[in-house]
């Protein structure tokens, strides 16, 4: 654009001020990108969850558990395709601090329900054949250096086995890849039959029933049908979808949405003040120059546009830089939200906010420039 030099003239006039303002904007949008990225990341994880799956647990509290006998009755509910279950074993490897959240399950049904988890069919067969078998995620196996065929001892502080020992031995028969699912999928599985038979007490109990349904639109109906089967019994059930479950878990940490929005709001408010002040100052100092431009024949509208374009250039360029840095740092937050890139929606939101910032901080001085009277301005009034 041939007018670019003029816009540049406005910004480069007080280089220090322009650069410092830009740095403030960069920092603000860096923070915005990180915080909203985490916030949206959580939301996305929840939304992406599978709606073909339901979870049934004891109504009073999941820890109370449900009888294994329920499995058949749940299977008979119309719309139910597969039924598996999870029973928490929760041991540790060698030392208490190496906690391994292990679950006892029906592996064949389990991986039929979680189709996105990649596992070789021969591993599932091996699990069926080996009572003391264990299936472990690739990542966990790598972390402890386990190979297929290893004998893995898990210690437990609760579940003493029939021999009176607190150490259980499992044979690693296969591994699976959870990367397409993300965080939250248990990484160590043992056979339910073996576990239930070998434990000294608390038999016949399951913590979660996992239900694969044929038609996601039927989710609510099937859930209700399952729960009504066991209403008014000793062990009432509660069935929810996967995203319902995830949302609950998230909410337990706190109202993250509110916190992020509050902080971002505070940051953007202070930033708005700074930017508006910078633009105002810049125009005020340049009144004679703007008057000269008008003298040379630049219309009121052109001068207004000039100032606005300056504001937009400043804000959007700096905002994009800030968002870029946020996107770079984002993978470092893997521990919080799993393997996610910074959501595109955050970038779009950021650009939108930057435009609003430019408009609000740039419009008053732009209007001032538009309206300025040449004669008065040149005379210094």
């Amino acid at each position, binding site marked *: 654009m041939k007018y670019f030099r003029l816009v540049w003239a406005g910004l480069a006039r007080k280089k220090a001020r322009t650069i*410092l303002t830009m740095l403030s904007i960069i920092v603000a949008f860096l923070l915005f990108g990180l915080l909203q990225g985490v916030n949206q990341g959580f939301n996305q994880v929840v939304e992406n969850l599978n709606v073909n799956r339901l979870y049934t647990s004891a109504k009073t509290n999941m820890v109370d558990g449900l009888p294994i006998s329920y499995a058949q009755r749940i299977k008979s509910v119309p719309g139910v395709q597969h039924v598996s279950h999870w029973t928490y074993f929760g041991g540790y490897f060698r030392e208490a601090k190496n906690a391994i959240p292990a679950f006892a399950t029906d592996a064949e049904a389990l991986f039929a329900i979680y189709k996105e988890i990649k596992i070789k069919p021969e591993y599932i067969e091996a699990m069926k054949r080996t009572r003391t078998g264990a299936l472990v995620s690739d990542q966990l196996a790598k972390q402890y250096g386990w190979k297929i065929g290893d004998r893995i001892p898990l210690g437990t*502080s609760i579940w003493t086995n029939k021999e009176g020992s607190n150490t259980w031995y499992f044979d690693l028969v296969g591994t699976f890849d959870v990367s397409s699912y993300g965080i939250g999928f248990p990484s160590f599985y043992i056979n339910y039959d073996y576990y239930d038979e070998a434990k000294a007490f608390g038999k016949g109990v399951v913590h979660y029933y996992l239900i694969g349904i044929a038609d996601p639109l039927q989710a609510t109906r099937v859930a209700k049908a399952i729960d009504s089967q066991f209403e008014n019994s000793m062990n009432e059930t509660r069935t929810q979808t996967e995203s319902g479950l995830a949302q609950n878990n998230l909410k337990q940490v706190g109202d993250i949405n509110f916190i992020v929005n509050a902080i971002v709001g505070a*940051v953007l408010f202070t930033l708005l003040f700074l930017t508006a002040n910078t633009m105002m*100052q810049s125009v005020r100092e340049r009144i004679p120059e703007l008057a000269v431009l008008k003298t040379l024949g630049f219309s009121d509208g052109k001068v207004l546009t000039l100032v606005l374009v300056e504001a937009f250039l400043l804000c959007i360029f700096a905002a994009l830089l800030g968002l870029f840095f946020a996107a770079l740092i984002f993978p470092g937050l893997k521990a919080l939200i799993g393997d996610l890139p910074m959501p595109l929606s955050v970038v779009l939101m950021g650009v939108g906010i930057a435009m609003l910032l430019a408009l609000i901080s740039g419009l008053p001085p732009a209007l001032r420039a538009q309206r300025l009277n040449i004669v008065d301005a040149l005379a210094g009034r």
Partner: protein
Amino acid sequence: MKMIRQIGSVTAMNLRSMPQRLGTSLVIVIGIAGVVAVLVSVLAMSTGMLRTMSNAGRDDRAIVLRNGSAAEASSALTLDAARLIADATGIKRDADGKPILSSESMRVLTAYKKEDGAEVNITIRGVGPKAAALRPELKIVEGRMFEPALAEIIVGKAANKQFRGFNVGDKIKTRGANWTVVGIYTTGDAHESELMTDVEALNAADRRGGYQSVTVQLESARAFAAFKDALTSNPALSVDVWREREYYEQQSKMMGRMITIVAYVVGGIMAIGAVFSALNTMYSAVSARVREIATLRALGFGATAMVMSVLVEAVLLALIGGAIGAALAWLFFNGNTVSTTTGVAGHLVFDLVVSPALIIVGIVWACSIGLVGGLFPAIRAARLPVATALRAV
């Protein structure tokens, strides 16, 4: 002396001309207010959390768990084990010669937050007959204590405040029993987020025997070592023994640490932004008064006086901003009840605490930002070549 007088008079001149620079001065104030408000508010969370947790421990009480348990919830002690523990040395005895301790079991219950119905796991604690003597800090503030062996339960004040259906007279359903809330208690610590009843009633409800933990009153804080030795050297027991305070600090450590990290990272990034904007403001303050500064220097005011006066102005504005930020944090968040998770079976309800220590942290940050933001412009003011400056338009 002369230096101080110089600094004083220059600063006074600066301040008197500030109304003309109100816009730019406000930028520092608002920017720093934002940083301090956010920092203090988020730290108030970890402060409140840690305070509530560490209150729950006394140095002369110890808790015994099954060997290898990360927390009470994953521990399991048999009746025999409890009996052996009760015989160990170091436990204080009451007037009847019985050891002051409580063998306790826990169950998890789903509670629903009042504000948004979010589901949360909270603890029902079954306590032994000597619990009152063990925990004198427990006071019934409404209703009455539960009768042992009845399906009666008392609710911690914090739990009562945060969750639905925990008022005196309400009924609570767990696996195998229907409980009636008969009282509300305070302890000033993490136990206020729990429900309490008689351990035998709790165990009978779902026909589970055994305990999760044994908490004992020691003869004195120093008796801990002997007590621990007696238990760990006993071949019939495999237990972990903790000082109560250390155990509770451990429980909240991870969450508390995470919150503190978030507070300082977010606050730090905001502070960097505030430094830039402070630099901006002070640079423009200096350049707006180039003639004035040069004149003063020509008149004989020393470079140090110029530097100090700019710094004083910057720090003063920063202090105002910091005070406003701290006040906002206190106004909006002090005393607010929040709750968060502390683990698989734990949910802690606590009050946000904007303590004097936190406010001091905020003020210190504000002053630091002001100092850094004012330093370079101050040096520039001192280095201005006087002759050219006097000619400047």
